């Protein structure tokens, strides 16, 4: 840019043409300004085209197979309980059931393990039709408050769950925390209870840097409306892992969140008894609730899509390799054949 200005400033000095000035106006030679920098000019020759597609195919098919087999190795047990955990007499009146604090919400489910599940077995709860990605919801949190005890009054962004009706700041504030998931699960095999490890279910960075160990819940769920779970006010936020997991809003309305881990192998055909405290209201928006037990491999949980996609693309590239080979065989064109130049192809454009 500067060079263009420099040269233009000389422009009106046409009448004074002393040799020095003449020299100064001459652009300096450099390969850059003369646009002569060495360049590689790759060319899509048939060889390269076929090579690229072949490479993609060769690369993708093994990856596809690997991820498919990894996905297949995952054992997953899914149990939908939202409907079944409503007493028979309350069918059709699920809302009354769930909103009434006096009803007994305990519910017992039995799950059969289809295949041996190696430790750790991850326990998830899955909700659907729950718009954790809604803008009103996502925005309703105060990161400052979570991190710094002094900023507990920074609740403006948390409306309508910022302050209690009498004006005290709620910690943690906002709709996300307020709607904390509060179903609980207790597992047992043949009445031997299984320990659920609820440590380390949240990101380590969240625990250490986003949720302070000096901030304790305050005035939480004390308002007129009770949303979801309550928090133990004596435990700092950094240790409230359920909350931390919940606060990581999901991208889609159907989502799973980690509840805990069973650090014990579950054998095939074992029957697990789950005692569920069915507290959380998904009935008003017709959302399902599922309990999921799943192992994980290097690609995470069960995900056939990735493998299938890889295989499909790999296969497609393989057929493209064939297609281009056929094309080059049947419509061969010598590279750099001048007869393909427009003036040779279109006789009227050339001079005779």
């Amino acid at each position, binding site marked *: 840019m500067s060079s263009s200005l420099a040269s233009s400033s000389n422009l009106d000095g046409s009448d004074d043409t002393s040799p020095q000035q003449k020299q100064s106006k001459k652009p300096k030679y450099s390969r850059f300004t003369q646009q002569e920098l060495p360049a590689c000019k790759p060319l899509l020759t048939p060889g390269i*085209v076929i090579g690229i597609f072949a490479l993609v195919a060769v690369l993708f098919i093994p990856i596809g197979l690997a991820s498919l087999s990894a996905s297949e190795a995952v054992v997953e047990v899914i149990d939908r309980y939202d409907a079944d955990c409503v007493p028979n007499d309350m069918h059709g009146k699920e809302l009354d059931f769930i909103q009434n604090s006096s009803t007994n919400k305990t519910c017992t489910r039995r799950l059969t393990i289809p295949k041996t599940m190696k430790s750790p077995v991850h326990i998830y709860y899955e909700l659907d039709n729950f*718009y954790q990605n809604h803008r009103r*919801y996502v925005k309703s949190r105060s990161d400052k408050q979570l991190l710094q005890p002094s900023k507990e009054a920074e609740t403006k962004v948390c409306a309508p769950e910022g302050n209690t009706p009498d004006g005290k700041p709620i910690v943690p504030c906002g709709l996300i925390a307020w709607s904390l998931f509060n179903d609980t699960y207790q597992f047992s095999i043949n009445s031997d209870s299984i320990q659920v490890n609820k440590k380390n279910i949240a990101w380590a960075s969240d625990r250490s840097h986003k949720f302070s160990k000096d901030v304790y819940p305050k005035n939480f769920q004390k308002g007129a409306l009770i949303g979801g779970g309550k928090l133990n006010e004596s435990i700092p936020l950094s240790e409230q892992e359920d909350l931390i997991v919940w606060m990581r809003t999901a991208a889609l309305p159907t989502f799973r969140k980690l509840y805990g881990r069973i650090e014990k192998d579950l054998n095939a055909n074992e029957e697990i008894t789950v005692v569920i405290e069915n507290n959380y209201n998904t009935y*008003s928006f017709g959302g399902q609730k599922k309990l999921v037990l799943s192992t994980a491999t290097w690609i995470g*949980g069960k995900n056939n899509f990735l493998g299938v996609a890889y295989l499909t693309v790999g296969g497609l590239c393989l057929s493209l390799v064939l297609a281009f080979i056929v094309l080059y065989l049947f419509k061969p064109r010598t590279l750099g054949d001048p007869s393909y130049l427009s003036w040779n192809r279109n006789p009227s454009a050339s001079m005779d």
Partner: protein
Amino acid sequence: MARTGRRKRDRLRWSKLYTFSCLRPSVQLETSDTGTASLGGPGFSRVVHCNQPRLHYKKPLKYPTNYISTTKYNIITFLPKAIFEQFRRVANLYFLMAAILSLTPVAPFSAVSMIAPLAFVVGLSMAKEALEDWRRFIQDMKVNSRKVSVHRSDGLFGYKHWEKLRVGDVVKVEKDQFFPADLLLLSSSYEDGICYVETMNLDGETNLKVKRSLEVTLPLDEDEVFKEFKGIIRCEDPNPSLYTFVGNLEYERQVYAIDPTQILLRDSKLRNTQYIYGVVIFTGHDTKVMQNSTDSPSKRSRIERQMDKIIYILFSVLVLISLISSIGFAVNIKYYMHNWWFLQPDDKDNKLYNPKTPAISGLIHLITALILYGYLIPISLYVSIEVVKVVQAMFINQDLQMYDEEAGIPAQARTSNLNEELGQVHTILSDKTGTLTCNQMDFLKCSIAGISYGVGSSEVEMAAAKHMASHSDFGGVGKGNLSSTSEIEIEPSTPITPVFERVRKSTIKGFSFEDDRLMNGNWTQEQNSGTILMFFRILALCHTAIPELNEETGGFNYEAESPDEGAFLVAAREFGFEFCKRTQSSVFIRERYSPSEGPIEREFKVLNLLEFNSKRKRMSVIVRDESGQTLLLCKGADSIIFERLSKNGRTYEVDTTRHLSEYGEAGLRTLALSYRVLEESEYLAWNAEFVKAKTSIGADREAQLERVAELMEKDLILVGATAVEDKLQRGVPQCIDRLAQAGLKIWVLTGDKMETAINIGYACSLLRQGMKQICLSTAPSDPTQQDAKKAAKENLSLQMSNALQMVKLERDPHAAFALIIDGKGLTHALQDDLKDRFLELAIECASVICCRVSPKQKALVTRLVKEGVGKTTLAIGDGANDVGMIQEADIGVGISGVEGMQAVMASDFSISQFRFLERLLVVHGHWCYKRIAQMICYFFYKNIAFGLTIFYFEAYAAFSGQSVYDDWYMLLFNVVLTSLPVISLGAFEQDVSSEVCLQFPALYQQGPKNLFFDWSRILGWMGNGLYSSLVLYFLSISIFSSESAFRSDGQTADMAAVGTAMFTCIIWAVNIQIALTMSHFTWIQHLCVWGSIASWYLFLVAYGTASPLISGNAFQILVEALGPASIYWISTLLIAVVCNLPYLVHISYQRACNPLDHHVIQEIKYYKKDLEDHDMWKRERSKARQKTKIGFTARVEAKIRHLKGRLHKKLPSITIQTVS
């Protein structure tokens, strides 16, 4: 004083000699005179008090000062005006609205992320505007602070800045100075008040014009007399007409009429006259030249205008998806929201999401959505284009091959926003003088007594000979090998060092004659030495020039009205007939018959001088030599002279005619010379009549003078003819040839007379023998006739219809037509009812030459072409008279040569020689066009691919206006992460090297045909963007569904992880896409493309390390969450590949089956076939031309066809062979 001594010598009364313009009896006007009746009325209300400028300091006689300003803004108006200019761009206006709205809670993003890019973009553009305007200001200041001598008081003169000049001031302008304002000429250094004026800057005419003061003001020729001088001028109001003036002067209680001969216009130059005195009549913007100037328009390139249309389309898409979004939002609010207890829909402060008022929420959401999806409209597009254009302009400025070593001036892109337009030029409108020609005449050949002298050849001949010689098999034609001629190889010369660079022995300016038969006195040995003597005398005597002793060399320089005359005098001097002195009544010539002899000074009494004008096309002098013989010497256009020859004066007519046609074909300007011996009695009789006519008063004075002159100019004896070469600028014919081969049409618009223009047409190969010339001109009509104009127009209309008919009926595919029209014809042809037909005719013709056009007409013709043809026009010129044309054309190119800076100041590009135009268009234009076109296409692709993913996500987020990406990602997407690769594409991409561009002019046609920015290509890119967005979103979502863990330790992906992963895929996909688009990778491109991808990861790491209060959920996202997850990396690979697969298939297929020209050439270069198979390379280069009927090549081919045609007639048997 030395000055006064010199003045005495100059004080001559030429008016006695001149026939037409000078001696005119001054008419004392009666108040009832019809000519002045309108004075004082509307349009003629100006009153100027001469020598009393104080009277003009206050109203009502307060006229503007002589200060001129051509800037667009001043300090106060800059901000509002420039901001207004900026927000005239739709996209900017949209972003302004978005930025304002981002301050309200409806905005989906933070306010900073909306305002910062806008401020950056607008600020940058405004800074550029300010800079450009500053340069104009500096230029104005230079002009305004020029100094001129002004009468202060009591007969004392002092210097003043031009801008301080007021109406009524008396100024003294000295030789070779510009007139600072429009002046009334009072007196000059010549006794009879004439002065010579060069009006180059006004009308481009190079010949000097004679101006003459009123008789009554002649005594005002000393500084002191102005002590007492007072007068009142009443005249017309400021107007742009250069050739008219109505007014009168009240001086010493008498009223005198003023006509244009007394008016000296600003920006013309005083020549051959020591000084003049004048009164300022019009100042500053009132002057005729300023009235003629139009505001410099802001030009936009075709591509940018088309881009606006695309932006409108994207706007429609934006509005559409916003509507879908807000309807979806309203529906969600109305039917589902009340169920979503976790959102507390019943909250009393909830306005945005109130289920009771879904319509209002929907409307508010529309605004949110319009902002959210704003990524469809690339805000950085404009700023990236600006950056790229500045780089491109820098390349143009720095190009050493467009640097003129002699003048020391590099090429310059003065406005950078038209670079790509250079690649789409369809018609070039060129000025002639100073642009095509150097305006320097060289005496090259002559024909005397039927013998042609002069062995030197013109540039045209040399080039043609070169062409002919290069046909190695051309000689084979005679052997019947006709088929081979169809593959005649025509070697295009390289532009840098033209092969036909002439090396002439002679270094005398204006004289390139070489022939020993005439030089060094050898002519005395020739057969017809008497005739030759007469020829030389005519050269030395028949002119109006003034000799000027050059003190350094002791020789003479000649100040001639036209460069032709100068060349004749130089020639006469070289032949031994040195014109050395002119007095009031005589011309002195030093004649030297052989080098050994000393010169003899002879005096010729000049009795009369019958001037040249364009109607007469001849000039004569009547001289009496020392022996008392009276001769009439006459030179003029051949046709005019030939019809005035006496019966015994036609001895050499046949030979001379043949020579004249040869010279014409060689591109030379020709004149025929003749003389006549007068009897004393005959002369005296005639002179009496002539004097009578000269002193007559009345409208028909000129007609009478002409008639009388006509009586004498008859029964002439032909002596010979001269051939002068109007020296073309270096490389002009070659450049025209190549531009023609690149498919460009070239029109020449010149202020010169028709014959000159035609000769130059020949010299530049715009015309050639065998071309059918259609000359449109209006017959000289009687001005007294009432409907003369109408008749002329009808006549012209008829001529055009006939010509069109002729063109349409032409069957020969090789026939070429040339249209030549003069200014008068143009005034009619440019009227609304005729202009369409004129244009139609002009388009059918291979070359168009407009002569005697005024600056305004140049602009009008340009507009006609621009609007009528609808293609890009380029105007090139060097003088102030070309300014209108330069401003009117889509691209204005100024030649920064000797003619002042007006043309350059008004131009968009300036080069110092016409020949650089080829490189400017064929190399820079071609590259810039492709770069910008590809860049814009890619921009739209990338923003569609990105912007639509935001929309898809909305459908999964209840259309709430939440974005899956972090605000910072989106902010950086356009500004940092994808901007450098696209800028490097726009600045550095080269499809083929500059040599190939020049070797294959046909490649240029990709631009005018708009191959790279037509709708199918744009829509293709948009479709590619749509496809990519679908792949990006749905594959990412399917892989990172929140339903299953994405890591081996079981965590599921939250919104930040999904958004980041998807964004990673986008960065990879669009950068791989641009890598596939590029065909030229220097380290810069590599750095930009791969660096962008790397910078994304670097950013993620840096952002993740920052406080979680800034990064929010993106805290440590790469290092902790995504990095260790293998699925993140393999999904990136998958999606990036899938996004680019169709494009790769498309380009592979296209290359395999329908390669474009540059593809094939790339391959030839890649495999070095051009070196291995040199013949093929040469052959293809010669074929890569557009069919053209102008230029050298066409000329040579026409000649070959002609020869072939002759052969066919002679050898019918061969014809049969070749046909079979």
